[in-house]
């Protein structure tokens, strides 16, 4: 029962309601990082980790402090603060403890703190009143979906560098068109699971 629900949430968040291709959130990082496969993979790993931890933190604060005190209307500002504070703290700690990892993934951390998917996931968790396990599953699914989108887009854009694109469409415009086409393909997933 519980496991099937978790599985459903991961599939739904990563494929059916993919944040990039069906909700069109987080596009600034999506286009900024997907130029090379190496940065795309680094960003995906960092993103999924930060997403799960910040979703867990926000769920704890929301359920145990904000709901009993009847101040759930503050969720947007509190979640922004929690995510930014957590990202800043992990940036500081990672720099000291593992400089190698910081050198590889540190540049993405500052970008992540202003990402809208990172904020949307705790807000959806709070709005749908998911349990702790369900929140984590939703965050994992969203992270995997974003990673999938980044990897697909990076592989396409590396090929597009060599393709014969009309002059006005070179660079970002053709990337937007490609994203629209992938979004159409992802529309085929709709109705796979109904929650």
């Amino acid at each position, binding site marked *: 029962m519980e496991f099937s629900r978790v599985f459903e949430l991961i599939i739904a968040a990563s494929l059916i309601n993919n944040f990039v291709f069906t909700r069109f959130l987080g596009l600034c990082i999506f286009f900024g990082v997907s130029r090379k496969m190496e940065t795309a993979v680094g960003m995906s790993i960092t993103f999924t980790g930060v997403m799960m931890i910040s979703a867990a933190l926000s769920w704890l604060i929301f359920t145990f*402090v904000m*709901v*009993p005190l009847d101040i759930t209307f*503050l969720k947007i500002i509190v979640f922004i603060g929690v995510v930014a504070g957590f990202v800043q703290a992990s940036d500081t700690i990672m720099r000291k*403890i593992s400089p190698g990892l910081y050198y590889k993934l540190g540049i993405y951390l500052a970008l992540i703190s202003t990402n809208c998917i990172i904020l949307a996931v705790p807000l959806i968790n709070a709005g749908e009143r998911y349990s702790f396990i369900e929140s984590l599953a939703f965050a994992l699914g969203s992270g995997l979906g974003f990673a999938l989108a980044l990897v697909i887009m990076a592989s396409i854009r590396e090929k597009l560098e060599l393709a014969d694109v009309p002059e006005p469409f070179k660079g970002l415009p053709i990337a937007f068109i490609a994203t629209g086409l992938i979004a159409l393909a992802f529309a085929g997933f709709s109705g796979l699971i109904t929650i």
Partner: protein
Amino acid sequence: MIEVFKTITESSFLFPLTDVMQFLIPQAGVGGGVEAKEHVELLPVIKSTFIFLAAVGAVFGLGLAFAAKKFSVKVNPRVEQVKDVLAHAH
């Protein structure tokens, strides 16, 4: 923890003007918690909002300051001097 929080918000020494404010603040109809309610006392909500935001700010501020001190990384001061000479354009 919630009980302590509620006693703090309900005590009047933090907010000496409670009786005056009672007349100034209108009573709201719907809102407040997860579910819509018919009647919401606004004053406790405002109090807990202030205290909660102050607490979150204090926790994160102190935590980040402590982390920055404990996990500080020494940077060679000559790096900054060289960067100043190079006009930060590299």
